[in-house]
């Protein structure tokens, strides 16, 4: 027993402890001893300087502030992401996408101009041969005006890019020169008056200048413009896809922060003011949560749409535009092969090279190529181990409406190649007849099938871009409403509580 008083001897400091609990870390965190049992606010002990953060209204304000900050973050992240999606769709859907079409049209028109000039020269005096001289001349005129229109469009879409603008300018300059050379060749040919087949050497000399200008300078420029648009789309796609990923992460983080803050505020108010729910805050939480969730999902969907627009739409449109360009210059090589015996070997080899880049079939020469194509096409779609621009389109397409269109393209391509075999076997005059008759018809049928297939992808592309824009637009429209309503509801939920302290 004696020990007790002994123990109590050092007691004196104890009142001290009761009076100033401040040095301990505990009090700030523990409102447990708070006598806040009565609903009307009984301000807790104010010891020392009244830190605003420790007072109940101060803490309510602080938590509310944190919530608002998180919400601002959320809405900010959403609106930047939406802006980003819009920019991406704009580049892909309204800038580089149309540029691919415009420049591919340009290539087609230019290449066909040269083909038609060659055809007119080949027909010579026999004006009625095949589809006739007049038709070739009309086509030449039509392609000329198509080319002019396409250059204008490409120039408008090239925008401020200096390298692209220089290229478009160079195309314009050389086009004028080409037309002069072509006109001279046509005039000389008319004066020469020769039977169907190669024209006299002096006509050929002028035509060689013209076709060299076309094939070595103009066509590469047009083709490279198409490729450049492909580059722009690929970069925009990569950039915006990764930005969308980051945006989604930010939205998720800010959404979680905001929801957490709102729940915290709700819990704090419930404990302090003995109310189970604060309805206004509850609704604000629901709105913020729903909007964050919708935003998050929509951003994910946009990434999917961008992907679809590029992979299913744009990539195929680009590949088919290139196939069409190469196909047309192949067709031109057939005319030039007959027109210029001196260069016939080169034109035959470039024809094979271009055929291989359209649809690759292992073969060392044209004879083997015809056979390989015939076999490969017959085996489609059971076997689709193709390479080349159309080959890869065929290989990556599962059973769908597209597959039927691809099968059609392949079938017509095979027919076109069969006519080519006929052309190379025939004697000079017969060959010209095949060229401007049956072969021209088959080429047009093949080209039309290609255009139809590209149209299917174009539709996919346009739809994906439009869907993407519509979804973002809806959320854009709702964004200010969500912001205003959450702000109003938070104020409505917190204000009455704060005013109890007045």
């Amino acid at each position, binding site marked *: 027993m004696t020990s007790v008083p002994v123990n109590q001897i050092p007691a004196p400091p104890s009142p001290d402890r009761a009076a100033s609990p401040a040095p301990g870390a505990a009090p700030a965190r523990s409102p447990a001893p708070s006598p806040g049992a009565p609903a009307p606010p009984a301000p807790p002990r104010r010891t020392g300087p009244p830190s605003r953060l420790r007072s109940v209204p101060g803490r309510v304000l602080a938590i509310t502030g944190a919530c608002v900050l998180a919400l601002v973050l959320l809405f900010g992240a959403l609106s930047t992401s939406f802006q980003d999606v819009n920019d991406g769709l704009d580049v892909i859907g309204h800038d580089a996408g149309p540029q691919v079409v415009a420049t591919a049209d340009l290539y087609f028109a230019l290449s066909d101009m040269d083909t038609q000039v060659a055809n007119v020269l080949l027909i010579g005096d026999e004006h009625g041969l095949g589809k006739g001289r007049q038709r070739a001349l009309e086509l030449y005129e039509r392609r000329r005006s198509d080319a002019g229109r396409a250059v204008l469009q490409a120039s408008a879409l090239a925008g401020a890019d200096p*390298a692209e603008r*220089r290229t478009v300018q160079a195309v314009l300059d050389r086009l004028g020169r080409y037309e002069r050379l072509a006109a001279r060749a046509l005039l000389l040919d008319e004066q020469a008056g020769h039977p169907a087949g190669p024209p006299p050497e002096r006509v050929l000399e002028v035509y060689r200048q013209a076709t060299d200008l076309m094939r070595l300078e103009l066509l590469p420029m047009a083709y490279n413009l198409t490729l450049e648009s492909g580059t722009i789309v690929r*970069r925009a796609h990569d950039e915006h896809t990764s930005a969308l990923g980051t945006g989604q992460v930010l939205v*998720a983080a800010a959404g979680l*922060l905001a929801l957490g803050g709102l729940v915290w505020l709700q819990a704090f108010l419930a404990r302090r003011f003995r109310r189970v729910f604060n309805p206004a805050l509850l609704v604000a939480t629901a709105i913020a949560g729903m909007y964050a969730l919708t935003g998050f999902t929509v951003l994910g969907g946009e990434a999917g749409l961008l992907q679809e627009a590029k992979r299913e739409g744009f990539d195929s449109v680009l590949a088919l535009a290139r196939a069409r360009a190469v196909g047309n210059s192949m067709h031109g090589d057939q005319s030039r092969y007959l027109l210029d015996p001196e260069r016939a*070997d080169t034109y035959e080899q*470039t024809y094979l090279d271009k055929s*291989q880049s359209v649809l690759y079939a292992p073969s060392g020469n044209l004879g083997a190529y015809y056979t390989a194509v015939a076999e490969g096409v017959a085996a489609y779609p059971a076997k689709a181990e193709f390479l080349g621009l159309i080959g890869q389109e065929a290989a990556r397409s599962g059973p769908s409406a597209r597959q039927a269109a691809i099968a059609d393209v392949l079938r017509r391509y095979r027919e076109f190649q069969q006519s080519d075999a006929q052309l190379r076997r025939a004697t000079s005059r017969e060959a010209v007849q095949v060229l401007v008759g049956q072969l021209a018809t088959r080429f047009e049928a093949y080209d039309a099938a290609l255009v139809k297939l590209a149209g299917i992808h174009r539709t996919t592309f346009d739809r994906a871009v439009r869907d993407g824009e519509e979804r973002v637009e809806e959320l854009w429209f709702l964004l200010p409403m969500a912001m205003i309503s959450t702000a109003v509801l938070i104020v409505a939920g917190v204000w009455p509580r704060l005013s109890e302290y007045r």
Partner: protein
Amino acid sequence: MRPVSVSAGAFPPDPGRRGRRSGRRPRPLALAAAAGLAVLLAGACGTGRPDSILDRETLVVGVKPDQPGLGMKVGEGRYEGFDVDVATEVARRIGAPRVEFVTVLSSNRQRFIEEGKVDMVVATYSITPVNRSKVTFAGPYYVAHQDTLVRAEDKDVDNVRDLKDRRLCQAAGSNSWRRVKEERQIAVRLVPAATYSECLDKLRDKAVDAVSTDDLILAGFSAETGSAFRIVNAPFTDERLGIGMRKGDLDGCEAVNRALTAMYQDGTAGKLLRKWFGASGLELNFSVPQFEGCA
């Protein structure tokens, strides 16, 4: 509350984001959010891009060691020729800090690219569908044409078809002879040789009657050996000479294509062509070639 902070602590290695929550009392919600952020960021950053020639400190370029005018070894690690100049210019324009040249041959250049021994190959590398399935090609930086070289006193050959029943040199690893014998189906007699320099020796020694390959290669050789040989000047193919790099390096390929476009637009390419082949009498084309497209 506790499990959250534990799991948040499980993501410290996230680089570049360290130290943000040290020194403060753990706030459960902030921690939860940070944990979520860390998880999502880790997912977003996990898919690293394949490396590109654009990321190289030192760009290792493979060139030929034995083709005068194109790629010729002149000393330890020193090469000269059109290919070398094109590679140097391209490297500068894509922003490579340093360039190093190494020897590649037709027989090993694809393997060197695949194994990463070289980053880029500029070595009269023809773009063909088969090559393209293994290597990504930028360019072509030039479209050469196959032509034929004969002894100067041999006046009977005006055209590749005149090679019928003559002896044609077949250099190892090169496909040029196929263009004659298989594509054109011209009945030549093939005489194998290890390299084109050996073909030239054989031509001089009358062991073969003709050498047929890219006109740029022939121009380089004939410039070196004076007037003993004659280029027939009857080109019969288009050979698209590309810049090879690792399959799938689209960023690098597109950057090289832009560099090539700029080189042709500002006249640099024309200057280099004239520098190396101006004296050969070849007809040169100074306009940008039609690119293959990066794939």
